């Protein structure tokens, strides 16, 4: 735990105090919540939620809230204008807030007993592999392992293998795609040709997947080396045949958090179709907002919410039944469009960018100019790898990190090679922060 706190201090400095207050506060609130009489539990729970949400609302959303008020007043021609203060976004606040909220809600619903050791609870909250960018781990998933975990040679090798895949995903694949995406997204979208707009969107699609999945695997791998079993967070989401399946494969720990703590308490799908669809919209509105304090993230969230509604309705009326390949292609197409909102600095940018994606204008550069000048031979190769690993099914592959088979010498060699390769890239390129560190 001390090492984890030191890790956080190196990243966030004296803001470590917020994490410490969160740990200590939630520890004692959890004990009180568990031991209190039923008639007080709801009040204590509400207090716990407020206690946990206040730092998140302040550090992440206060500026956006004031900006939104200013925008509303501007539209209504009011003279009111709020000064927007500069507030630093605390590393990992979205993640450890969700950890603590899930902890309290699970205590309230008697799924778990509270931790009796502040150190053990602090270990859960601050565990450095997942502290900054997930996966969102439930207390119940690692409570036994905190005090009694078992680390074997096999688990260490498996952890190294998963870690190396994650590191290479980030440094080799995501950063290569990201270099192209950044180049294109830095331009005025109105000047983009149809093809460049698509190249940028596709590159970002791969960048965000391999960046985030890479980080998750690094966290899972490190945890495994220490004897923890973190849940899987990504399962090749771009192979999905529909949006529902996409959200069962993408950021799985976030999806299940929203399902268990927002969607189901709102009634889930048990209160009729209209309410189900409304619940979906609420969940995805919050999901978008969780990702960032900006209109673009809200639009992205609602976009996926509406796609899910269409999915549910088409399922109900047996519409849009097409073969697997077209389902996957169509789903991937919709996901790529959504990522444009996610990546854009503001809403007008994303709208203009998407317009260019459908402009079908005749400014089509030659293959040479894309291959050699825009992308470069080295990055072109890595983008081909991005495509391969996004769509080729790894389930039965010998490379599958979740395979039950022992980690053989082939995988050990792959691990060492990938770590070495990644280290050379980090040395020469510096280190690009993970995209999800911003959340």
């Amino acid at each position, binding site marked *: 735990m001390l090492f984890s706190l030191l890790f956080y*201090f190196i990243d966030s400095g004296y803001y470590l105090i917020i994490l410490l207050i969160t740990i200590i506060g939630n520890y004692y609130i959890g004990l009180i919540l568990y031991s209190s009489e039923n008639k007080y539990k709801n009040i204590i729970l509400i207090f716990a939620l407020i206690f946990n949400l206040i730092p998140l609302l302040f550090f992440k959303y206060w500026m956006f809230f004031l900006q939104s008020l200013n925008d509303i007043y501007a539209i209504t021609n009011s003279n009111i204008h709020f000064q927007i203060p500069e507030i630093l976004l605390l590393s990992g606040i979205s993640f450890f807030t969700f950890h603590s909220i899930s902890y309290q809600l699970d205590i309230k619903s008697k799924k778990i007993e509270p931790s009796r050791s502040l150190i053990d609870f602090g270990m859960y909250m601050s565990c450095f592999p997942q502290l900054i960018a997930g996966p969102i781990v439930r207390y119940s998933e690692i409570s036994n392992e905190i005090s009694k975990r078992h680390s074997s040679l096999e688990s260490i090798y498996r952890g190294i293998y998963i870690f190396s895949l994650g590191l290479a995903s980030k440094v080799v694949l995501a950063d290569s795609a990201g270099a192209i995406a950044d180049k294109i997204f830095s331009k005025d979208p109105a000047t983009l040709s149809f093809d460049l707009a698509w190249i940028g969107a596709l590159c970002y699609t791969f960048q965000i997947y391999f960046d985030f999945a890479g980080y998750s695997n690094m966290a899972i791998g490190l945890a495994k080396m220490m004897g923890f079993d973190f849940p899987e967070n990504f399962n090749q989401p771009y192979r999905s045949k529909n949006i529902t399946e996409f959200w069962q494969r993408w950021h799985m720990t976030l999806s299940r958090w929203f399902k268990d703590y927002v969607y189901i308490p709102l009634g889930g799908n048990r209160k009729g179709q209209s309410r189900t669809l409304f619940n979906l919209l609420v969940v995805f509105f919050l999901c978008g907002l969780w990702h960032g304090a900006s209109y673009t993230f809200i639009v992205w969230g609602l976009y996926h919410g509406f796609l899910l509604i269409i999915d549910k309705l088409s399922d109900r009326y047996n519409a849009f039944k097409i073969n697997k390949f077209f389902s996957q292609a169509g789903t991937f197409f919709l996901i790529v469009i959504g990522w444009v909102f996610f990546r854009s600095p503001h809403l007008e940018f994303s709208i203009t960018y998407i317009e260019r994606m459908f402009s079908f204008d005749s400014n089509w550069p030659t293959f040479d100019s894309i291959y*050699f000048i825009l992308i*470069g031979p080295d990055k072109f190769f890595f983008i081909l790898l991005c495509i391969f690993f996004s769509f080729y099914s790894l389930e039965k592959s010998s490379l599958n990190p979740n395979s039950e088979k022992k980690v053989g010498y082939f995988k050990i060699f792959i691990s060492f090679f990938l770590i070495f*390769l990644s280290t050379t890239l980090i040395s*020469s390129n510096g280190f690009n922060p993970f995209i999800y560190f911003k959340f």
Partner: protein
Amino acid sequence: MLRKLLLLIFFAILCAPVLQMGFSIFDEKPILENRALAQKPKQVSVGNLVEVRQKYLDWFNDHFGFRSLLIRVKYQLDYTLFNASNRIHIGKDGWLFYRSVLDIEKPAVNDYLENNSGQVIAGVQNLAERLKQKNITLVIFIAPMKDVFYSKYLPKTVDPNRDSSQISILEEKLKKINNLYYLDSKAILTETLKERNVFHKTDFHWNDPAAFAVAQTLVNQLGRLAGHSKITWEEPVKIISRESTGGEANFLPLLSPLKEQGLYLVDLNLPPHTTSKTDLPLDVVTIKSPTSNLLDPIVMIGDSFLDGMIRAGLQAHFKKSYKAQWNNISLEKLTSNLPPDTKYLFIEFIEVSGGVFAQLANQK
């Protein structure tokens, strides 16, 4: 047992960079980087721990053990597998070109001249006029970059649609300015190219024989202007070829740097002379027993391309030569403080020197 041993080896290797940092077990040749590396923070105390933590991270990122080796491995892999580099355009037949020059600096200068060439011409005219009143001849030489003469060796990673036409347009206008002697770099080097290479393959600079050709042309033209009946500089020079590695190859940077057979001049010695320094600062070379064939004193301002001309023997043909460098003095300061015996002002700069164009544009 083997698996345990492999694991131990793996973790030992992970510790190696820290050990290298602490004990400098191996000598590491540093990488050429166009920036200053982060320095180790001093005066660390509990009070400033938060502020120095980022500085420590920056220092660690720039100094961890085997960093240079790992960077070289990365660039070697790019070069070997993909024939690519994000620092250098790797051309055909071993020709290298800085990416920053072709992708950033040349387009930037082209854009600048598109909007400001009028001011540049006006500034040069003003300067030439001012100098003429003091009986000083202004000579300007714009050194072209390697791609002007070796475009057939450019790789496909260079944008074929890049526009660098503005410099040629400017040069044509400069040739027409009164009181200015414009030394036509392209004409001289194109002629020289018929006999031998004029640039290094693995270096940004022209070779010394090319510098000699330009220096000789300059001296002889000035001699003609001065009314000398004989050719001022007619002695031939001896050119040798030797293996070398240029700055672009070192910037690449590979495990084993690329080499070339570069052309060099056999060491030339100046005739007996004295050296001194003025306050400006100017480096002064005075020939001890000047003959009648020597030209009057010259003030030169330039960069490493001018240094090539000096190595080729330029200063041997002037009674006195004053030399300044662009990074030591501004054009304004130099032209306002020319030594009283100055007869020629020679301004040399490379075609991507946006700052010099701006200084010329500001001449009143």
